[in-house]
């Protein structure tokens, strides 16, 4: 924590993405932190596969992966806490810190605290992840190829052997764990894929097809980018991480939350949630407000958070899986500066704003308190009005209604994925300015509207008068006008 002397922000904030990710959580967190008063940005799901692009008004650009997106806030950087729910990649953290140093952030690593109980993802996990995804061929799940899911699966199957952040400080213990990990994943790398996550509730996820034998270091179509690293080199690097970064125990976060309000920066999106997403095209992570609320409740702050949902004025998806409103023309026109075709996830897909999916996401996460709309300049860029999707129908014209399940049920989510793959969107022109119209449709107040990539492009639109009924004599807004 550093001595940020600003107005105390009113309450804890939780920022989540109401789609498949990429909606603009990074700029939202950057905006909140620039208002001042937040003591830290806390990550409570996902790992280094997060990629939250923030462009500062002065033009500096950083893709936030494990550092919180409050690091470029004006005045002082807001520190980052990686909670026990995060899968930590110490190697990626170092590279990210280097880039932040280049951007002029002094000593970025001193801004980070990491819960000792968090899992670490290693090159072995990543290699196994890539081998499996390669073996799926055309049936890829849209994985990022970094091994975050592999890390979660391995920890479920072998809880005592899963390497943690705390282990980084004990090289001998970590060595034993890494040896076991390498042994167990060797069969995967040799192409004899065993099902993973056997002990997860529901059923065995990730049906893995018979792989083309891809030995270690194979250079087939999947192109493992580099051979597996030397375990000794890794141990030395993990140790350097443990010596350099502040590792904390279970008492740290409650105290942090007592001290000042924080921003919980979600990763991925609600529609990729491990239980509410469309199986198997999901992430091994809880992407709703569940984890932040659990951490707050543990610290006795159960009721003190503003939940903020983020959406673009159109839908996006990076990676495989159903996307009802996907549209080739929009994908071409609304190409994304920071989201290009990814070697593992494939292309960046764009579609019409999807009210049905937004409502599903809101229901899945138990609602939010306010809405941030990004890319409000898209209609202008598109040169035509945007449409939105107000319903789904199946091939025979029958309407399809979707709702989250009451209990975790992957078979149900897989059936849902099948139905969505076959569904067609019912499109209509958006009747009005997109941000305010969407907020009204979802019955949410607007937190901010972004018409460009930086926090300076954020504003709160002045609500136009309702177009029905008599003109009210006394508008609350009139106070701001000079008569």
């Amino acid at each position, binding site marked *: 924590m550093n001595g940020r002397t600003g107005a105390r922000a009113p309450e804890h904030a939780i920022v989540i993405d109401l789609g498949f990710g990429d909606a603009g959580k990074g700029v939202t967190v950057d905006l909140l932190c620039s208002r001042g008063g937040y003591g830290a940005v806390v990550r409570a799901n996902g790992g280094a596969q997060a990629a939250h692009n923030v462009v500062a008004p002065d033009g500096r650009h950083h893709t936030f992966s494990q550092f919180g997106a409050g690091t470029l806030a004006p005045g002082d950087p807001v520190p980052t806490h990686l909670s026990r729910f995060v899968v930590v990649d110490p190697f990626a953290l170092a590279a990210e810190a280097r880039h932040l140093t280049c951007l002029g952030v002094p000593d970025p690593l001193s801004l980070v*605290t990491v819960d000792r109980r968090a899992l670490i993802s290693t090159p072995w996990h990543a290699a196994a992840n890539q081998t499996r995804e390669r073996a799926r061929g055309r049936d890829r799940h849209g994985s990022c190829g970094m091994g975050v899911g592999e890390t979660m699966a391995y920890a479920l199957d072998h809880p005592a052997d899963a390497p943690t952040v705390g282990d980084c400080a004990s090289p001998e213990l970590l060595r034993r764990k890494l040896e076991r990990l390498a042994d167990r994943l060797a069969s995967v790398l040799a192409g004899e894929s065993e099902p993973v996550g056997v002990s997860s509730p529901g059923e065995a996820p990730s049906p893995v097809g018979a792989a083309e034998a891809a030995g270690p270091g194979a250079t087939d179509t999947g192109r493992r980018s580099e051979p597996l690293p030397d375990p000794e080199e890794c141990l030395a690097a993990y140790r350097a991480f443990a010596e350099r970064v502040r590792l904390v125990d279970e008492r740290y976060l409650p105290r942090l939350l007592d001290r000042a309000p924080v921003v919980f920066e979600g990763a991925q999106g609600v529609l990729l949630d491990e239980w509410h997403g469309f199986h198997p095209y999901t992430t091994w992570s809880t992407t709703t407000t569940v984890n932040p609320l659990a951490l707050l409740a543990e610290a006795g702050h159960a009721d003190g958070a503003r939940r903020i949902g983020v959406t673009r004025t159109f839908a996006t998806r990076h990676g495989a899986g159903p996307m009802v409103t996907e549209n080739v023309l929009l994908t071409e026109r609304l190409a994304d500066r920071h989201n290009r075709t990814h070697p593992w996830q494939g292309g960046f897909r764009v579609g019409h704003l999807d009210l049905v999916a937004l409502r599903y996401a809101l229901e899945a996460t138990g609602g939010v308190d306010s809405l941030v709309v990004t890319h409000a300049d898209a209609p202008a860029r598109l040169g035509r009005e945007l449409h939105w999707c107000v319903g789904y129908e199946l091939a025979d014209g029958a309407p399809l209604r979707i709702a989250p399940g009451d209990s975790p049920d992957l078979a149900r989510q897989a059936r849902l994925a099948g139905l969505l793959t076959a569904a067609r969107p019912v499109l209509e022109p958006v009747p009005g300015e997109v941000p305010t119209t969407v907020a009204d449709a979802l019955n949410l107040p607007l937190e901010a509207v972004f018409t460009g990539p930086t926090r300076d492009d954020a504003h709160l639109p002045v609500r136009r008068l309702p177009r029905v009924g008599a003109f009210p004599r006394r508008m609350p807004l009139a106070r701001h006008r000079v008569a």
Partner: protein
Amino acid sequence: MGSSSWSTDAYHARQAYQDSAGISSFDYHDHVTTRAPRHEWTVHPSLDPYGVTVRESRDSDAHPNSLAVSVLFDVTGSMGRVPRTLQTKLPDLFGLLLRRGYVADPQIMFGSIGDATCDQVPLQVGQFESGNELEDDLGNTLLEGGGGGQVTESYELAMYFMARHTAMDCLEKRGRRGYLFIIGDEKAYGAVKAREVREVIGDDLAEDIPFPTILAELRRKFEVYFILPTGSFHYRSDEVREFWEKHMGQNLILLDDLDAASETIALTVGLSEEAIDLDEGLKDLAEAGSDQADAVGKALRPLARGRGPVSTSSGIEELAGDGPGVDRL
């Protein structure tokens, strides 16, 4: 979302971590002192003693056998370098206590002491921590560098806080007192002043408390040591040494090299816990790659022999303090 664009290469990661080590992390100090005139300097909220009920050292699942070790250091003028030294040596302190099995679950607290008569920030107290969080407390320490120049600092105010505003499982559950090390080079004031207590800590005291009285009260909770660096500005003043000899007896540790403060503290705890004798401890030091064995050995030889410095005054009740290894409650 998407995917990390950051390299996940072990070699470069290690380089990055090692290259960035050793950067001063007194962020708060640098922030405050460069942006505000001195009369506006304030204590970081995390270290502010005002209104604190108790600083707690508690057992947890990870640390079932907690033992409280607190280190309070003088941050005025001549002593301003201590926290920076401590910070670079922190891993040694924990490492020594843990690796050698001196203490199963040490919980360490840092605090810093100024002069309540003239400093903006006369007392800063962290929390009992079981790991690297300690660096938070150090990082938030304001090194005021003031002090009154009258060979006196508000050690008694810090002692009052430790005596009345700490709660420890080691004491409450196991009847073992915690350890308190004060590192300083000046005398304490003759009494805890009710007015200062009100301003700095927020307690409503009816009257001042004489220094020997608060020290006796403190000793019911902590085994108290005073570390007097001999290289510091005031050491030549016999007045200071005699003051602490009188009140601390053999629990006064004269230390030639302040850089050995962490090692000295670790070994003192090891000796008191009867986990080692001095020679074993010095061997541990040498094995841990420390070049401080000479300074530490010299400082702790009297303590290890169970013989304090020759006192120049006698008849003071708490002259000898409590010897190492004695648990008198």
